[in-house]
């Protein structure tokens, strides 16, 4: 298996120089792998402050990891040669949250589409460029004649966001990183934007990392999921398993809090998640201060990811009978191909583990 993009034990600490006591650990020992042979959709889900956007900025090479590495096709994005960096910037495209801020209001929307065409010399003639642009606009469900020549304020938020998806497509990327692409878009348009991302994955073979706070849309479009809590991975693996039978107490709380639109009320009673023990200090499991099943060991050290099933891993001591994912061990947590590896302590995985994980 070859990897397209990989984060290896990445930790990002903001601030915290010699004289700064306010260091913030935005992300701790985060690993993710996207397979280059099989296009997939991976969701990274977390509340505000969980480190989602830090993940996006690290993967894009926009911030330097404090520890660990981000590799693109085996090369560290921080140290890669100029030519490789240029290829990386072309192969990995990003869609940001706010479809208002990314446009310059003085330019027509064409500008965001023609700039990459000329910058990366995608077309030899004007007619060729136009055909290319029309093709990607149609791919995201926009009519070129109704979109081109307009100013950003003349398009709706949903249309503007779709132009951004079209812009990402122009460069025929290998990977699209979508950071909350639909959180500012209305319900009736949300589905069509996510639908066009899914289409890109199926028809054009583009892998997608979908970063969101919304577990329901993540479930709808992704195959694999990583649940973050305060900068650490709480649970990761196959989306069906994680959503249908959450194992980490945080994932369980998160899923029970989602208001589902149905005739049956799913919210029942008061959410009395009183912590079982009083947490002190900064070591240990980050969820311990809210966890109903916390025990004293939870306060000692951050739990490693335990592999509770072939396609899932949970960072919780409740599952310590399961094997811990060991450092350097390629263990497949994500369905089939992609791997997520992470380990802090404990036994190196047995050889048999890697075999059954490859199913």
């Amino acid at each position, binding site marked *: 298996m070859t990897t397209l993009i990989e984060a290896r034990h990445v930790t990002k600490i903001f601030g915290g120089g010699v004289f700064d006591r306010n260091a913030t650990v935005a992300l701790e020992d985060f690993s993710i792998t996207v397979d280059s042979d099989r296009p997939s959709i991976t969701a990274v889900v977390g509340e505000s402050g969980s480190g989602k956007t830090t993940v996006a900025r690290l993967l894009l090479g926009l911030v330097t990891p404090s520890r660990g590495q981000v590799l693109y096709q085996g090369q560290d994005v921080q140290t890669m040669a100029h030519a490789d960096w240029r290829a990386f910037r072309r192969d990995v495209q990003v869609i940001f949250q706010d479809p208002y801020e990314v446009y310059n209001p003085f330019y027509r929307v064409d500008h965001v589409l023609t700039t990459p065409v000329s910058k990366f010399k995608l077309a030899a003639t004007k007619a060729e460029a136009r055909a290319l642009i029309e093709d990607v606009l149609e791919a995201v469900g926009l009519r070129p004649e109704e979109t081109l020549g307009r100013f950003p304020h003349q398009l709706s938020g949903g249309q503007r966001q779709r132009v951004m998806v079209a812009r990402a497509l122009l460069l025929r990327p290998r990977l699209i990183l979508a950071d909350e692409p639909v959180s500012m878009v209305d319900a009736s*348009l*949300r589905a069509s934007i996510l639908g066009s991302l899914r289409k890109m994955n199926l028809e054009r073979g583009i892998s997608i990392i979908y970063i969101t706070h919304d577990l*329901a849309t993540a479930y709808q479009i992704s195959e694999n999921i990583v649940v973050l809590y305060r900068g650490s991975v709480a649970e990761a693996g196959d989306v069906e398993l994680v959503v249908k039978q959450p194992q980490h107490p945080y994932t369980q709380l998160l899923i029970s809090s989602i208001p589902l639109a149905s005739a049956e009320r799913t919210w029942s009673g008061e959410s009395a998640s009183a912590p079982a023990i009083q947490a002190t200090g900064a070591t240990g499991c980050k969820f311990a201060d809210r966890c109903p099943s916390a025990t004293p060991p939870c306060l000692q050290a951050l739990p490693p990811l335990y592999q509770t099933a072939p396609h899932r891993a949970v960072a919780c001591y409740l599952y310590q009978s399961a094997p811990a994912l060991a450092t350097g061990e390629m263990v497949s947590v994500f369905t089939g191909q992609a791997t997520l590896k992470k380990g802090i302590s404990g036994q190196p995985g047995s050889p048999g583990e890697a075999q059954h994980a490859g199913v």
Partner: protein
Amino acid sequence: MKPDVLRVRGLQVYYHTPLGAVKAAEDISFSLKAEERLGLVGESGSGKSTLALAILRMIKPPGRIEAGEVWLDGQNVMTLSEEEMRQVRLARIAMIPQGSMNSLNPVMRIQAQIADALRDHGVRMTKRQVEERVRDLLQSVGLKPEVATMFPHELSGGMKQRACIAIAISLRPKVIIADEPTSALDVVVQKQVMETLARVQRALGASVILVGHDMGLVAQFVDRLGVMYAGKLVEVSPVRDVFTKPLHPYTTLLIATLPSLEQKGTFAGIPGLPPLLRDLPPGCAFHPRCPYAVDRCRTEVPHLMEGRPDSWAACHLLS
């Protein structure tokens, strides 16, 4: 049968812009029973916040309430003087506005902000009485008494939102209008804030109008649900019926846009775009996006009619 606390009749709000009148609310009528929870959902620009503000007569120019009556306990608040209306707000109808947690005064302690509201509405109390009242209010929204002496920046988003609920209920209003009270909060905190609101509503015996764009969230909380589209109320039905047998095609399609956690692939968009409120299509505003539109929909504006007992929708297909 409980009596009506609030009755809105033919409410019409336009924003006058150089490009023409933006019809943000058109011919809106509904009633709210004692202790009832009514939800108003719609996409952005459907007029739901305008409607909430219009009930309190808080529309600012270039907006204007063009027509309509709002009856509160047998009194049409549209006929009150500005000063009388000011006394009605908070005391009889309280509002928890959108993003209200960011509207707390950053340089005033929470206690001072609650006391300010009480004093402005003519409540005369000694310092000790104020402290006691504030402590009770904070307790009823699940906050510790220490919060009284804190500044807003010392509180989390959920705590700030609860402090806003405490201010809203400080004069025991009959009606609470909550406009997106949990937007920008995480789901876990969102659930806790909504439970707080439910608890104070039961304790006060107040009625609540909950305005929101998240149909799932609103559905968890309300008894009856109103759906707005392009400045009009297109359906009002008991919440269970809205999901099992929606009357208006827009409601049906809107429900289909909600991602489910039960089953994959149950998630579709609505083709087309919402219309511009200053340039509405003739007839039913939804007809360009409606898969069931017939000729009549293109020419004649549908009005709310009772499709089933207690369920109303504005659609020609019902007649």
